[in-house]
């Protein structure tokens, strides 16, 4: 074996081991410390679960408010992003002219490259401007966070939708055309349903990105102690922010345990989402025998 082959073999195995041990070490450490913290008490503290879920009693030392905050953030963001994201993806895949595809594709790429902290800064500045000129009592809140998150995850949804439709075999389009279907009928009744599970996978992927992002929400309204979110204009707690906050500001070993439990919970949720997304995307591939 010459030097180059030897070096490459060495590099590859070293990389393999570093990745396995690096990530494996971090994850196993997290599980070792956090698995015992995942129980009902982590969520609801000393409040009975039933009362906590229906907001009959406040939860003082559990992460239920953060869970509720993340859920409402997720719901709101997906509501904002779903229609523009999917229709933009469909338009790019089916209708756009060469020049539009170039231009809009470029915009999507640049938008995807904007760091999330800059998007958070955008939200913060938006509020400052609003406060100075229009609404003196505007403040960072749940709605603002959802809006900025929606802009942040928009490219993910567009790209996933577009590539699911573009991955469909071209015979499908040709057959529809040969049968005399109009372009809009083809898209609505044939292409979108055919790419359905891929688009669903894209939606789940987008949910994952929304859930894990921390940099945006910490500038646009997430706080450490807000209780349950009370409305669009209120401050809120969220799981990733809770983790970030605990790592810097924990005061007791109980809080630290709670941090480990929360981190592990977020990790599991993210993994469930990505596995679901992969399964749906795989189903699309199998259905149309795309490799």
């Amino acid at each position, binding site marked *: 074996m010459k030097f180059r082959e030897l070096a490459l073999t060495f590099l590859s195995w070293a990389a393999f081991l570093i990745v396995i041990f690096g990530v494996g*070490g971090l994850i196993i450490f*997290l599980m070792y410390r956090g698995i015992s913290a995942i129980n009902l008490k982590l969520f609801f503290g000393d409040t009975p679960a039933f009362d906590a879920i229906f907001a009959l009693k406040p939860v003082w030392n559990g992460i239920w408010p953060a869970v509720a905050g993340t859920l409402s953030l997720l719901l709101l963001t997906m509501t904002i992003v779903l229609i523009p994201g999917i229709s*933009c993806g469909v338009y790019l895949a089916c209708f756009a002219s060469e020049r539009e595809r170039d231009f809009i594709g470029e915009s999507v790429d640049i938008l995807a490259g904007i760091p*999330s902290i800059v998007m958070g800064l*955008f939200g913060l500045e938006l509020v400052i401007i609003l406060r100075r000129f229009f609404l003196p009592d505007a403040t960072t809140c749940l709605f603002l966070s959802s809006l900025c998150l929606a802009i942040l995850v928009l490219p993910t949804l567009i790209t996933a939708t577009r590539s699911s439709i573009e991955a469909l075999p071209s015979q499908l389009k040709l057959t529809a055309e040969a049968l005399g279907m109009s372009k809009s009928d083809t898209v609505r009744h044939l292409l979108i349903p055919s790419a359905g599970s891929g688009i669903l996978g894209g939606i789940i992927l987008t949910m994952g990105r929304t859930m894990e992002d921390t940099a945006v929400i*910490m500038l646009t309204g997430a706080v450490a102690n807000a209780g349950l979110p009370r409305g669009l204009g209120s401050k809120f707690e969220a799981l990733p922010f809770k983790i970030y906050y605990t790592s810097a500001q924990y005061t007791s070993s109980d809080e630290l345990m709670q941090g480990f439990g929360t981190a592990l919970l977020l990790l599991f949720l993210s993994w469930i989402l990505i596995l679901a997304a992969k399964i749906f995307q795989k189903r699309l591939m199998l259905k149309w025998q795309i490799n």
Partner: protein
Amino acid sequence: MLRFSALLISAILGTVIAFIIISGIEAFIKGSGLSLFGDVWNPNAGRFGILMMIQCSVLLAVSSLFTGWFLSLGCCCILNGLAPKFIANLLMGILTLMTAIPTVVYGFAAVFLLVPLIRDALGGTGFCWLTASMILSLQGIPTMTFIMNSAVRSLSSETKITATALGMTPIQHLSRVVLPLSSKAMISAAILGLGRAIGDALLPTMLAGNAIRFAKFPLDSMRTLTAHISLVLSSDIGGGEHFSLLLSGALLLTFCAVISFISRRFGRKINL
């Protein structure tokens, strides 16, 4: 309707960019007495220079890109025939799971595992350039590996039969034929990885220590532009700190937009 929502994307992008850039320029003009690009950070003296943050951002991004890129290259070779099938499958599974690990979880685990290790082994506080760079490079591996992998896989299957017929072993095939052919994908992975590394806010904030100074050694504490934005409280709106924040945002945005632009031009060349 569809067309409208598609054009909406460009409008949103335009708004965000214009907004950030204009605030950045405004901050630069209004704060001209504060030497915003200077190398002194002393709020009491009214000096809010962000040169140190720029230096730290560049150092951290380049160092973690360097290690991350080589590790990704290694992973890519493992995936493409350098290792037995089951090892490749195992690595693929792990990389897929890695794409879903939230950055904040990486940060949290590293604060309580890696930071004490570094502190005990090498001294200092443990919150330093080295720690942040290690985790940042780990975090960037899946994206870069997948970009490299898609190019390498298609090139490899195209040339496999010819190479085998010429008597090349799989490793020779990979190192002499496929990798040289896929150099453009390698560069575009690096460009994209650089954008990711410089834009990440959580890991530098949680792991790098956040001291405002020029970092010279791996154990030095540092504060990047992104960490600067996430740390400064916005209580003094219109003050020097706020201006420095806006300027940092504008710089980051410009940098990342340029990177996307370059990698798109580059990507088009690969396809041809």
